[in-house]
C-alpha cells in the first residue's frame, strides 16, 4: 500500500458517494454502449475483432441490478490505451477511444466493442492480458472497479500481474466465457459480476493502491 506523501498543503478530497436511485438518464446521452459504430451512416469503424461483452450485474439474491451505470475502459485491438502519454502512438486507432458507458435494465447488458489487444510491457509496467476495466455506480454503493478478462487467452491470463495477485479461486470470476453466437456476427463473451455474497466478484481499490 503506497502511503500518501506527507505535505502540509494537500487538500482533503470529498467523500465518494452513491449515485443514488434518481440520477438522470441523460448520463447516457450519446450512446456509448457500441464502440464499433462511430456514427449512424458512417462506413468507417475501429480495427479489430468485434465482440459483445454480455454481462449480468447481480446482487446477493442473484437478482439482476437494474438502473446501474456501468463504464468501460479498454485498449484498442493493438493493445494501446488512448491516454495522453500515448499521444501520437503509431498504433492508435483513429476510430477508437476505448470509453463506453451504459445503464443496466432488468435484462443482461450488452457492450459491443472490439476485443482489446494485450498491453505491451513498457515504462516499467508489465505486459497485460487483454482485458476491459469496468466501473459500476448504483443506488446503495459508491464506485466499484474491476477488470474482465477472456477465457480464450489462457497463456496471457496466466502471466497477467493482476490475476496473479489474486488467490487462484478468485481469478476465474474475472474471466468472461466465450459462448455460441450466430456465425458471421461478433463473438459473444459472458460474465456475471456478483456485487455481494456467494461467488462475489473481486473488486479493486484504486484510491489506496
Amino acid at each position, binding site marked *: 500500500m503506497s502511503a500518501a506523501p506527507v505535505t502540509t498543503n494537500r487538500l482533503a478530497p470529498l467523500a465518494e458517494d452513491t449515485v443514488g436511485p434518481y440520477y438522470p438518464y*441523460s448520463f447516457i446521452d450519446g450512446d456509448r454502449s457500441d464502440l464499433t459504430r462511430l456514427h449512424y451512416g458512417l462506413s468507417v469503424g475501429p480495427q479489430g475483432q468485434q465482440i459483445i461483452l454480455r454481462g449480468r450485474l447481480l446482487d446477493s439474491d442473484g437478482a439482476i441490478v437494474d438502473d446501474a451505470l456501468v463504464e468501460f475502459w479498454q485498449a484498442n485491438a493493438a493493445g494501446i490505451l488512448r491516454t495522453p502519454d500515448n499521444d501520437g502512438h503509431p498504433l492508435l486507432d483513429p476510430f477508437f477511444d476505448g470509453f463506453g458507458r451504459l445503464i443496466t435494465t432488468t435484462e443482461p447488458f450488452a457492450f459491443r466493442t472490439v476485443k482489446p489487444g494485450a498491453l505491451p510491457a513498457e515504462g516499467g509496467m508489465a505486459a497485460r492480458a487483454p482485458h476491459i476495466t469496468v466501473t459500476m455506480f448504483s443506488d446503495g454503493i459508491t464506485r466499484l472497479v474491476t477488470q474482465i478478462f477472456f477465457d480464450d487467452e489462457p497463456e496471457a491470463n496466466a502471466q497477467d500481474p493482476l490475476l496473479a495477485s489474486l488467490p487462484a479461486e478468485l481469478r476465474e470470476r474475472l474471466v468472461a466465457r466465450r459462448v455460441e453466437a450466430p456465425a458471421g456476427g461478433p463473438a459473444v463473451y459472458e460474465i456475471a459480476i456478483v*456485487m455481494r455474497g456467494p461467488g462475489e466478484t473481486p473488486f479493486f481499490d484504486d484510491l489506496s493502491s
Partner: protein
Amino acid sequence: MSLIIDRGRLMLPGPTDGAAERRVPSERLHLIPEAARRSFVPWVADLPGLKLGENDLTRIAPGRPQAEGEVIEISGHVLDEFGRPVRNTLVEVWNANTWGRYTHVKDPVRERLDPNFLGFGRTMTDEAGRYRFRTIMPGSYLARPDIDRWRPAHLHVSIRGGSARLIAQMYFQGDPHLARDPMFILLGEAQARHFGNRVGQGANGQALYRWDIVIGGRNTAYFES
C-alpha cells in the same frame, strides 16, 4: 488486532438502505499491483457537446418559464489533491425540485412535479478548473415514510473527463434533517467539506454558494497532458 496493510478498503453498507445490504461487497477491495495499475486509469476525451443553458436548471430551456422555488447559484473549482485545476472536465448535476421530488420515473409519487423543472444539468470546467451553475434550492423529502426518515436538502454532482471520476453530494448548513441523515452522518470528518458556503447574493436576488470539489486518488493526476 493488527493493521491490515495488504488489502484495500472495506466498503460498508449504509445503515438503512436495503439496496446497500444486497450490493456492497462483503470482502475488502483488493489492492492493485503497481505493474497492473496503468489500465485502471481511464482517459475520457469524448465528452458531449453542451447546449446553451444546460448549466441553468431553473429553466427547462432558455426563454421558458422559471421553475418554482428559490434560485441559487453555485460556483467553485474542481481541483485535485494538490490544488491543481481539473480543466475541461464534465460536471453533471442533479437535484430534487422545491418540493423534494425528482423528475425521475422511479421516484415514488409523493410530492408535486414542477412542469418547469427537470432538475439535471451539466457544464464544463474552464481552463482554471472553474464551474458555475444555477438551480432551484432543493426541497428535503421523506425518503423512508416507514421510519419517518427525511433526506436533508442536497444536490448531487458527477465529475467525468480526463482521468477524473467522482460522484458526491453537497449539503446546506443548518438543515434540520442533517442530524438524522445516515448518508451525512457516514461522511464523518469529511462533513464540513460537503457544505456549500453561502457567500452572498447575486444581482437578481439569487443566493450565491461557493463549493470547491476536490477529487482524491492518484487517478486524477493523469489530467495534465
